[in-house]
């Protein structure tokens, strides 16, 4: 990777709440403080900050301005904001670190879905002329994708339920998961369709939450962190918007981003993928060329905690945590944006050898 080697030296997540009592900035504040504490740096050592959030989630035209308060932007800081998942904010901060004039950057994502109804808000993400007026919601678009995959024979409804059961099992003991437990696949399959061919367990929970990640250049990382998690590659791509002009069974943008991030350049122990709908695990696994030996979503993934605008960055934090815990040597993290899986970011992380 030609870019200067950069490492994750700190990260933090909030729990994932179905309905947070605190405001977004109030629950973001301790997450940023914890990430800074983990990186054991002074807040002023941060050379660049990038935020990810979405005004529409909280229904306020300048909601992202209040998030600046959680960063403590006084005296003034060098900062920017993307109206996207925190994973893209991390990409922008990772680029800023390659300039050579700063050595520590903070990226974070935060979102509060509980005040609004995502099924009514998210159609605004779609083409304003031909799709928004139909109320084209994320669940329906994911269901079109699931049907296409089922019709192709590459997956069965039972295999979808098995993904849900495995994720909930793996989420047991994960303090950041909102949903967890042992469930019987047969019992799941007996439940009614919500939006056919998907049932309740095929869908993500509604979550409020935040995630922050701190990165440092190689020299600074070695100075402040015993086991930095190296970012070997990040790449992100987008696909055509109109669902009828795409092959929903595939994710070419994930495949391209995976090559760009160098997924295939070495063995992969675990992958934290933004699988918000059970059938998408198969699409993403195959797009990234991940074999059956790769443990997918050991944290439980978005099917057990899905705080919008933070869920993609949370995959990167969970992958970094797994490496630092010694559960993995080399990991892939994936974030997505747009429905379904229209835009995808892939990041390859590696522990110190």
């Amino acid at each position, binding site marked *: 990777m030609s*870019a200067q080697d950069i490492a994750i030296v700190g990260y933090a997540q909030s729990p994932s709440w179905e309905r947070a009592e605190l405001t977004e900035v109030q629950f973001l504040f301790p997450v940023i403080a914890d990430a800074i504490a983990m990186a054991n740096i002074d807040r002023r050592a941060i050379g660049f900050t990038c935020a990810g959030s979405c005004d529409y989630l909280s229904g306020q035209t300048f909601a992202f301005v209040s998030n*600046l308060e959680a960063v403590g932007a006084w005296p003034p800081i060098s900062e920017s904001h993307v109206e996207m998942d925190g994973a893209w904010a991390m990409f922008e901060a990772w680029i800023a670190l390659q*300039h050579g004039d700063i050595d520590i950057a903070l990226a974070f994502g935060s979102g509060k879905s509980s005040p609004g109804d995502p099924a009514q808000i998210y159609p605004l993400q779609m083409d304003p002329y031909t799709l928004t007026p139909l109320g084209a919601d994320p669940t329906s678009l994911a269901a079109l994708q699931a049907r296409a995959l089922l019709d192709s024979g590459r997956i069965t409804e039972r295999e979808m339920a098995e993904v849900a059961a495995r994720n909930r099992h793996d989420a047991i003991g994960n303090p950041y998961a909102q949903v967890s437990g042992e469930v019987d696949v047969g019992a799941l399959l007996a439940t009614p369709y919500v939006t056919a061919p998907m049932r309740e367990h095929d869908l993500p929970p509604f979550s409020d939450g935040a995630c922050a990640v701190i990165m440092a250049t190689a020299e600074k990382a070695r100075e402040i962190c015993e086991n930095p998690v190296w970012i070997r590659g990040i790449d992100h791509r987008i696909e055509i918007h109109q669902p009828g002009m795409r092959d929903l069974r595939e994710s070419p943008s994930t495949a391209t981003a995976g090559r760009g991030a160098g997924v295939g350049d070495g063995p992969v122990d675990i992958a934290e993928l933004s699988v918000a709908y059970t059938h998408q695990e198969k699409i993403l696994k195959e797009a990234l060329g991940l074999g059956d030996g790769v443990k997918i979503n050991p944290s439980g993934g978005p099917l057990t905690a899905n705080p919008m605008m933070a869920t993609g960055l949370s995959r990167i934090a969970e992958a970094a945590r797994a490496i630092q815990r010694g559960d993995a040597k080399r990991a892939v993290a994936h974030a997505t944006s747009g429905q379904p899986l229209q835009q995808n970011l892939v990041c390859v992380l590696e522990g110190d050898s």
Partner: protein
Amino acid sequence: MSAQPCAIVGIGQTKHKKRRDDVSLPGLVREAAQRALDDAEMTWTDIDAIVLGKAPDPFEGVMMPELSMADALGAAGKPILRVHTAGSVGGSTAIVASNLIRTGRHERVLTVAYEKQAEGNAQWGLAGGRSGGMGAGGIFAPWMRSFMTRTGSPAHIGPMVAVKDRRNAAKNPYAHLQMPNLTLEEVLDSPMLWEPIHWHESCPSSDGACAMVLTTETIAAGAARPPAWVLATAMRSELGMFPGRDPVRPLAGVECAHAVFDAAGITNPIEQIDVSEIYVPFSWYEPMWLEGHDLVGPGEAWKLIESGDTNIGGKFPVNPSGGVLSSNPIGASGMLRFAEAALQVRGMAGEHQVDGATVAFGQAYGGAAQYFAMWVVGATLDAVDRKK
């Protein structure tokens, strides 16, 4: 790893109007992008990455528009980022795009910023959809009044800036409001919106877009028209609402200016900068930023303006394009400042060209005067050194 040079080889903008009813939303953005590609003599498929910027989505009611506009921007299979930093967004978008070139990440980056305000209503958006909105002018008015008191600036300075910018706009074919014969009396007679701001001293609501093509030094060598070179960039943000903050001279604005001038090697900005395009949505912000960025000392700005030195042909021309006072598609306004600064050093500003300009300053601000994005561009990479 020192940053690689970044060249601006393509610039395009739309004809800014109250309502562009001849184009769709993506069509408006493509009009600017196509013109930038034509200027750069590149096609859509030549572009490696896109950086899109705009102000709050509720202005048009389209959430995360990079998703529905991906196809319109030829983004399929490519990376696209959407930047959003309130009013400064057009500037910060250009800076994020330039970072992709300067770090060697990409070789041809298309950056676009827009606002189609007639789809919705900016005042509704600024009021967060609630009755009794203050409007941006309402938030800024007390700060302007405080600036006038602190600096003893005579009341006609604001109106003089309005006359200058609206007359300059008559020399800019893309400007929304073009008033070649606007007089001081007409400004003073126009209704008061938020005391002390008159109607003619406040920005219009526009539909408009701006686009630039950024590339590497090697590719720029083959450009048909002279490129502009990014000499330095800086961004600063500060908290907006806390007791004891001085919004009249925000510290983020002071520090951002010092950072960008230092990075460009500028030691005496008032002498070494040939032309500035700065974000003046209400007339008094011209003197406020001249002092707020230490271009002149306290109480000096109004004298510079009154002497005509900020006119085209003056010692320190400001907003020869007519500025935000003449065209304000909010999301694009910041990038228009950056692009107009680049046009000046490329010698491509047409009727509002400042003769011999080789170093230009682009500035944008947003929120409660708390977000700042600035860049310095040059006709050559050593344009500033040649001035010393």
